[in-house]
């Protein structure tokens, strides 16, 4: 007998998802959030064509100008065009959001699978995860960045590290509950290889909760990057990010609040859209979590 004929877990991973993307248009609010996020993604991709000026070009004679035909949103304290900076700022935010989601999910998945399957490493791994989880994520991230210097890569790693334990614990809990299922026991008893058991029988169970978790990691990573930049411990202002545009606007916020308002608005909108999509994904993909959240 081949393990392929075992029920339930034999579905290919893509098959689990294909028919269910409809949730993105489930309610008007989710549809608006999806469109909003797509627009922000498009804005970031096409930033070089959309931005009217060079986002890092400083024109000292044009400092803190109000909105005009030339500078639609005005200029910042160094005479840089605010609109161009805001348009470019989304690139880093989205890159870090997606990067952190992918990285945290990948690493967390591996740790979770190992931890859930091998009891002898479980205790050690989980104590380590508890330790990382006990450190407030922003403190952990700024400590990592302060030591290794702030580049897009180090900020990405610094933001990802505190997210890994949450993913690992989620995967572990799914694996632990799936391990006792008859189809996994059957696969073990007929001598399926370990990678095959993990890939075919355990992994598919984790896909839906992981996608949901990945959206939250993405939203949180975008937020954390902005916080790091805002505190002055993130990516340097030569690369505009929404966080460091706001940080740059702090000194002038009493005379020119728009330096904080516009990047803040786009930042909030992005996170809000991703969170809403995450909630919708949870309701659509993971009925178990939906019940836990109390929807009847």
């Amino acid at each position, binding site marked *: 007998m081949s393990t392929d004929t075992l029920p339930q877990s034999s579905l290919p991973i893509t098959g689990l998802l294909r028919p269910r993307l409809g949730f993105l248009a489930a309610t008007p609010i989710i549809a608006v959030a999806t469109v909003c996020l797509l627009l922000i993604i498009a804005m970031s991709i096409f930033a070089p064509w959309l931005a009217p000026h060079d986002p890092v070009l400083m024109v000292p004679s044009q400092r803190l100008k109000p909105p005009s035909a030339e500078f639609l949103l005005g200029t910042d304290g160094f005479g840089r065009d605010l609109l161009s900076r805001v348009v470019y700022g989304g690139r880093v935010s989205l890159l870090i959001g997606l990067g952190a989601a992918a990285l945290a999910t990948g690493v967390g998945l591996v740790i979770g699978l190992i931890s859930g399957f091998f009891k002898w490493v479980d205790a050690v791994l989980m104590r380590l995860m508890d*330790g*990382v989880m*006990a*450190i*407030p994520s922003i*403190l952990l991230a700024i400590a990592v960045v302060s*030591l290794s210097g702030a580049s897009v890569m180090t900020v990405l790693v610094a933001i990802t590290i505190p997210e890994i334990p949450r993913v690992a614990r989620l995967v572990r809990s799914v694996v632990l509950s799936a391990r006792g299922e008859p189809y996994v026991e059957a696969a073990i008893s007929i001598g399926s290889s370990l990678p095959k058991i993990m890939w075919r029988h355990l992994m598919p169970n984790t896909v839906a909760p992981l996608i949901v978790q990945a959206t939250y990691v993405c939203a949180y990573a975008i937020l954390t990057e902005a916080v790091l930049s805002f505190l002055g411990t993130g990516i340097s202002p030569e690369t505009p990010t929404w966080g460091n545009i706001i940080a740059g606007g702090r000194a002038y916020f009493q005379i020119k609040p728009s330096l904080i308002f516009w990047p803040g608005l786009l930042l909030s909108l992005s996170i*809000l859209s991703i969170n809403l999509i995450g909630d919708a994904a949870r309701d659509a993909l993971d009925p178990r979590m939906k019940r836990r959240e*109390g929807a009847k």
Partner: protein
Amino acid sequence: MIGYLLRRVLTAIPVMGAVALFVFLLLRLTPGDPAAVLAGDNASPEHLAHIRASLGLDEPLYVQFFTWINHLLHADLGVSLISNVPVLSMIGDRVEPSIAIALFTIIVAIVVAVPLGVIAAWQHGTWIDRCVMGLSVLGFSVPGFVLGYVLIQLFAIDLRWLPVQGFKSLSGGFGPFLERMILPTMTLSFVYVALIARMTRAAMLDVLGDDYIRTARAKGISETAVLLRHGLRNAAVPVITVIGSGFALLISGVVVVESVFNLPGIGRLTVDAVLARDYPVIQAMILLTSLIYVSVNLLVDVAYTLLDPRIRY
């Protein structure tokens, strides 16, 4: 109960051990000479030697680790690399604003969020419920520093009701102190309210479907009593849990809010230490905040047994 408490304290020790190991290795595993990393590019040889001696970087790694742990266990958090002041006294000088905002935030958040969650669950599916849930998603999405500046613009600059920024110690009178705490507390409690309200609603929805609620209603007990005595008391465990696990969010939030409102607290101290690469202060702050987080969650676990007689260890 005492046996349980002891066991629970014992399980917190390996967690703190993992935190200490992590903090220790973070500096030592950074590529390059740790002293050079801390001193920056234009450091004088004397400064490098000072950092090496101060952190004991010339010793073998395990000797460094155990010396450091030994100092920690004697409440010696080291000395700042910049000002040569003991880190513990630096933290002591700056702790008042941070504790004040954290306390105010927890109180405000619980007082606002729990009723919101209860009402949302009670009015499940109505516009009230949707408003509360919408507010909660918004709370997770609007960054604290953006909200902080919006509130400053509104209440301090446009309406002129409150001071823009700054801090007055409680010893200088309650009025000026409270006045400067209102906006930071509002800013920080937003996300915490979102978290607690969401969990209260979910926990209440779970409970309100149970048979004993129907029985209580059938007995003709007032709706308030049903919701509070029969509902909320049984929904308390997940709500208390999220208050505990949300504490990490609160600590991170304090760091941000202190920067927005120019409060001279330990969050500001941490950021300044990071910008100056004052590693003894950074590692002390990570250890301290983790210790607070672990202790709060230990208290939460103990609270379970008091709140829910079914939980016995």
